[in-house]
């Protein structure tokens, strides 16, 4: 029951985030979605994910608010509205069709396919010695996935550092 209230709240906040004109209000609405997602993780009994979601959401909000404060973008709506509307409607129809086809195949909510998970839960503590089963899975059974995630973060930091270097430094060195 609480979960459904939270989900409805998240959908409402996401619509607000898209529709509102002010960029800062939009960022705050996105933050509301994130914190509601954190609460939803807690209700679904996943405290690891809830902690991570909470702290990452705080950091992202700080960065987004710093980036958008006092720098609003004007909203541009012009021309070709027939084509835009028709293409949007067609896209929504295609999306809904594929979503209907895919969601029919999913197992019921809270009733996942447990073949691999049962083995992890049964043998996790004995094989790894870690009491927290989540850590035992992400850093021992599925450590290769974690290595991939770490590589993604590492690459993104390298990319940001490379793009956001102090601009114009090369020109001055040439002039000297």
């Amino acid at each position, binding site marked *: 029951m609480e979960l459904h209230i939270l989900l409805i709240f998240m959908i409402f906040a996401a619509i607000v985030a898209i529709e509102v004109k002010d960029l800062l209000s939009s960022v705050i609405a996105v933050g509301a979605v994130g914190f509601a997602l954190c609460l939803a993780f807690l209700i679904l009994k996943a405290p690891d994910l809830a902690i991570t979601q909470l702290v990452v959401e705080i950091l992202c909000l700080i960065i987004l608010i710093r*980036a958008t404060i006092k720098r609003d973008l004007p909203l541009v709506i012009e021309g070709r509205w027939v084509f835009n509307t028709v293409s949007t409607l067609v896209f929504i129809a295609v999306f809904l069709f594929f979503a209907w086809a895919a969601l029919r195949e999913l197992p019921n909510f809270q009733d996942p396919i447990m073949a691999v998970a049962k083995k992890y839960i049964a043998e996790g503590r004995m094989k790894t*010695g*870690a*009491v927290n089963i989540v*850590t035992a899975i992400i*850093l*021992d059974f599925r450590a290769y996935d974690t*290595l991939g995630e770490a590589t993604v973060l590492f690459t993104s930091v390298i990319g*940001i550092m490379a793009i956001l270097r102090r601009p114009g430094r090369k020109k001055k060195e040439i002039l000297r």
Partner: protein
Amino acid sequence: MIDNPKTGMTLIVKTITRLTIGLILLFGIYIIFHGHLSPGGGFAGGVIVALSFVHMMLAFGKDVAVTKISKNLASNLESIGALMFLSVALLGFLGGTFFMNVLAKGTPFRLFSAGTILLSNISIGIKVGVGLFAIFLALVVLERAKKEE
């Protein structure tokens, strides 16, 4: 530089920051080290460590934060964290396969148990904490550079 009233936020914010920042950093380190015993782990603890430095930068201004961790030190530490995680992975070849848990398992519910998981958590914590702080630092430095032009 720290007590300069012209940089950063007001005196109230600075005083509260001075009281809380150590506790936030300590909590992040606790979350990293107890990743195999309680909820949390390297990623969540690393983000909390990064948040403590972001907190310092917001309260005291950019210059104070850069004296604690410069951009070069941040990128060096991030590379060290990544290499450490990879070497933990390669350590598994002692036991036969990639990511094999070769160290002693120890008794459950103790801090020093679970073999290489603790090492992996520490390296991911270093990497994530310093990496996210480096992203924030780069964004702030870019904003300053644009204003100067």
